[in-house]
């Protein structure tokens, strides 16, 4: 995509209504949405359910098999706050108001089996997110920090989670609650957003990470400030490196890396701001991994919206 010369727009192509309370989070199943595979979208809500929407059909409805899943996934004691698929789509992590993190294994036929429950390892976990290709679980919290954990399966039954690093104010971290985090496609850059009204970009040495089973330090690269005037609840990087953000000012922003920065310092600029993307707070934004220009958003207004990123050159869809 040519970000410098063309003008871009976000066009709403679908609105999903069905949750009876605010929608906190939305996630596309990896590998779906392109190459003839129907897109599968999961969303979770204050109505204490977890819904799977089949994007291939014109009507958005709960897939029949999932009634069974929903009863299993009601393991959380109260609101399901966040969902995240790992890279292969074999594991789903959910994080609830009850402060626990649940790991679900995906069986065949879209059935889910609870694999692990992690209790109280971080006070008030806001969201959980997997690294794009390593099974490292990142969590971030009301205490303004970001923590990463590596899962080590021990012999026998005990599963061991180790916290590898904590990013706080002393690392140029956030000065208020961290609400979300996202990785670029290479897995060597991470974007976080916060109640402190900033979006921060972090980097790590990927080779070191791979050789040390995920154990490599992350450093602050850049802070984006002044684009949202209320809590930023969500960020997500597309495969092409477009950062989407969603905030309590009802708006969404898209950022791209710019050529104008110094040689060693990555520099990001605003591609577009979608004011009034929803009627109320935008709680989540997520790009579809197989279809680069599709973006899903979830809001306090109870809806999930699907957006298409288009360019002024008139193409309905941008080719990859």
């Amino acid at each position: 995509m040519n970000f410098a010369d063309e003008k871009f727009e976000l066009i709403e192509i679908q609105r999903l209504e069905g949750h009876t309370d605010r929608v906190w989070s939305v996630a596309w199943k990896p590998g779906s949405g392109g190459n003839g595979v129907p897109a599968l979208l999961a969303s979770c809500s204050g109505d204490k359910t977890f819904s799977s929407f089949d994007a291939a059909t014109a009507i958005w409805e709960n897939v029949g098999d999932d009634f069974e899943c929903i009863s299993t996934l009601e393991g959380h004691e109260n609101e399901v706050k966040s969902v995240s698929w790992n890279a292969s789509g074999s594991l789903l992590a959910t994080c609830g108001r009850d402060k626990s993190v649940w790991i679900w294994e995906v069986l065949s036929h879209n059935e889910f089996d609870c694999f692990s429950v992690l209790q109280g390892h971080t006070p008030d976990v806001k969201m959980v997110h997997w690294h794009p290709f390593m099974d490292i679980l990142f969590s971030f919290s009301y205490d303004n920090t970001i923590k990463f954990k590596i899962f080590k399966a021990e012999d026998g039954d005990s599963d061991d989670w180790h916290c590898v690093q904590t990013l706080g104010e002393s690392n140029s971290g956030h000065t208020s609650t961290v609400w979300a985090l996202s990785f670029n496609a290479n897995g060597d850059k991470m974007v976080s957003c916060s109640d402190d009204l900033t979006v921060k970009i972090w980097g790590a040495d990927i080779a070191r990470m791979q050789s040390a089973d995920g154990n490599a330090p992350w450093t602050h690269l850049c802070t984006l400030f002044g684009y949202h005037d209320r809590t930023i609840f969500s960020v997500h990087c597309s495969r092409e490196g477009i950062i989407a953000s969603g905030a309590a000012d009802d708006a969404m922003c898209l950022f791209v890396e710019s050529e104008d920065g110094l040689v060693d310092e990555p520099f990001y600029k605003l591609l577009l701001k979608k004011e009034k993307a929803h009627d109320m707070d935008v709680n989540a934004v997520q790009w579809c991994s197989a279809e680069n220009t599709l973006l899903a958003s979830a809001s306090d207004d109870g809806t999930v919206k699907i957006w298409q990123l288009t360019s002024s050159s008139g193409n309905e869809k941008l080719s990859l």
Partner: protein
Amino acid sequence: MTLGLINANPVVHAKKERVVRTEDSHTDDAVDPLEIYDFVRDIRDPEHPYSLEQLSVLSEESITVDEKLGRILITFTPTIQHCSMVTVIGLCLREKLKDHFPPHFKVDIKVAPGSHANEESVNKQLNDKERVSAALENPHLRQLVDECLYSSEL
């Protein structure tokens, strides 16, 4: 919870005279700070059998509205610096005003600057919608809040 009252001898003020308002506030979208004040002034204090207005926790100046931006700020003053009921009062305000405004309005609730020892932490909790939601799911807190909101209607 604490055994004795935090503030055993609060200063109680007389209720201000009420201005009769017409009932057509629902027809227009304008948000009137005095109308909001009317709606919250009688919330009962969690500890004392008086309203927030009588204890000067709230006053007309507590409410500021920015129509253009769609922002509402409510500032309240706990009776003492170490009031441990401060978050309950904040929750009462949140719950009372829930769904009261057109959806695009954003409501911030804070303690008056310098009025509480844990000002920053209290403000952070009261303006984290997730924490507020979680607090209101706690049966004990819920009961406290309900008592403050509904006793004034008896």
